[in-house]
């Protein structure tokens, strides 16, 4: 593969190639539809023979996330991928990582639930991802790719954010983005960090003492005053992330009377719906959150003042719509349109939902 070559591949495959190219040290994963191509592609590519990246099929998602914890604890760029039921199993490890302030990337190619649910796409894990998902007060940075290109680009971005804030990052994708094939330009090749670079970047990591005092990576603190202080420090960090790392994209909001808010594959479908609405003379724009946590609360609040209504389009029963309502604070009507169980909304259904708001 040449640099800048335009390739055609699935979102899941793009993640695997991007991981190898952005200096990932280790991938740990357990098969589950619709994301198994990530591990399969890595197995086929054999990066352990080229970059030295470790690739391991684990015995469970519980093991995967704890391998992430172990790899992150020694300062490595480590990642896992799974789909909804598997990510549910990982929640214990994610809260431990948040507590111990460990960087790491978890890719969730969502499928429909609850339970074993279906292998078809869904965005039903929005609450789980943006509210922490495990025990305790914590947040995970959540990126929502809407194309195969973003699946590739967000791998390196995730690692950058994860290490900048010593915090786990979730790429919240779905079965559509994971399975569909699109054009993609893979990120430029970047070598893995040397041992010295890891130690310099992560002076807190359990790399072996080698000339310094001991490092302990832990989320445990039995002294309530110290534990409260740790929590306050975490909350300060989350506040800083909220101030600095909100990402979103806007489409045709300048002249819009109605705003659609949608992320991931729902945003792709909504784009078509906006085109259809405008053909009918209804001026609709869209805000696509790229970070679901931190959420683009401020921008949505600003836009609310010039909109006759806001429609949240999601592939779930209405989860992000709660964050929109919190942002809008009643200044304009907010409604939700979504499908569940593996059904994705069609553009004309969304047009119908916009028309309903006008009525």
């Amino acid at each position: 593969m040449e640099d800048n070559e335009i390739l055609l591949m699935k979102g899941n495959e793009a993640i695997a190639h991007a991981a190898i190219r952005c200096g990932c040290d280790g991938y740990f994963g357990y098969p589950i539809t619709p994301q198994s191509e990530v591990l399969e592609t890595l197995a086929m590519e054999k990066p352990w023979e080229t970059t030295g990246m470790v690739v391991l099929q684990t015995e469970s998602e519980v093991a995967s996330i704890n391998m992430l914890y172990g790899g992150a604890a020694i300062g490595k760029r480590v990642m896992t991928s799974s789909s909804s039921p598997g990510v549910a199993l990982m929640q214990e490890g994610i809260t431990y990582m948040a507590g111990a302030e460990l960087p790491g990337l978890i890719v969730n190619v969502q499928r429909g639930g609850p339970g074993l649910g279906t292998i078809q796409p869904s965005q039903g894990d929005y609450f789980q991802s943006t509210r922490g998902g495990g025990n305790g007060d914590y947040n995970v940075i959540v990126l929502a790719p809407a194309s195969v290109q973003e699946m590739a680009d967000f791998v390196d971005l995730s690692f950058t954010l994860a290490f900048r804030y010593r915090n786990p990052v979730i790429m919240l994708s779905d079965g559509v983005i994971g399975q569909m094939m699109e054009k993609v330009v893979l990120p430029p090749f970047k070598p893995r960090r040397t041992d010295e670079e890891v130690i310099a970047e992560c002076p807190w990591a359990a790399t072996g003492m080698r000339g310094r005092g001991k490092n302990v990576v832990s989320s445990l603190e039995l002294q309530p005053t110290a534990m409260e202080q740790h929590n306050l420090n975490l909350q300060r960090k989350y506040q800083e992330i909220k101030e600095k790392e909100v990402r979103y994209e806007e489409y045709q909001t300048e002249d819009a009377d109605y705003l659609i808010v949608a992320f991931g594959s729902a945003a792709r479908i909504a784009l078509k719906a906006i085109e259809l609405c405008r053909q009918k003379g209804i001026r609709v724009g869209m805000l696509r959150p790229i970070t679901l946590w931190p959420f683009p609360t401020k921008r949505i609040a600003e836009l609310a003042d010039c909109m006759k209504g806001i429609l949240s389009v999601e592939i779930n029963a209405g989860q992000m719509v709660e964050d929109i309502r919190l942002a809008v604070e009643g200044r304009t009507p907010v409604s939700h349109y979504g499908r569940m169980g593996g059904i994705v909304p069609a553009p004309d259904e969304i047009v119908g939902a916009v028309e309903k708001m006008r009525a």
Partner: protein
Amino acid sequence: MINDDIIKPENLVYKKPALLNDTPMHYCPGCGHSVVHKLIAEVIDEMGMQETSVGISPVGCAVFAYSYIDIDWIEAAHGRAPAIACAAKRLNPKNLVFTYQGDGDLAGIGAAEAIHSLNRGDNIVIIYVNNAIYGMTGGQMAPTTLMGMKTSTCPYGRDAALHGYPLKITEMAAMMEGTCYVTRQAVSRAAYIRRAKQALRKAFEYSMQGKGSSIVEFVSTCSSGWKMSPEAANQWMEDNMFPYYKMGDLKDKGSN
């Protein structure tokens, strides 16, 4: 003789291992954990690996192992230490990586992670302190609790119909291709402690030679959980635990 005559370097026969710091241990008197800690500190020091060792501490009474032994540590979720160790070793093979786990941690909630790590031959060492009870949470039944033994959650004694049978993880480990050294030891007598130290050293050496995974089980007491004096607990262990959990090497693939 006055003290100054006795305290001379040439008279020194024993001292606290260098890697064991002065933090007061929270273990109950007579608890096996503290002796096993001492052995780990001694062996790592004697192997000259203080700077290249990473321990994974469990959830259980030994959760604070990291407070006492001066090496790098990672504190695990309950039972997940082997998965953490697997990654820490594979991503940094030059380090000595070991887990330290109780019987609830390893044979109960973490059985899957332990078995798969051992079977994969992750080149880690699992140090397994089996006191047949959940010490930390106040003496509940463990997967390893002996038949008829009373705990707070089997107050009438472990009953096969209700609770099944005590699990021998170490015997299971011996059957796995990925393990090179599987042994069961104890620390209740000086002779046992000496033998246990040799076993620990062998396991650490095999790990650094890439021969596979090892498990060193320490059959141990929990005087608080068992509600006995330390002395009575030692006797009870020798009378009741040793016949079921037999001491000695179950497998040594590394010597040839």
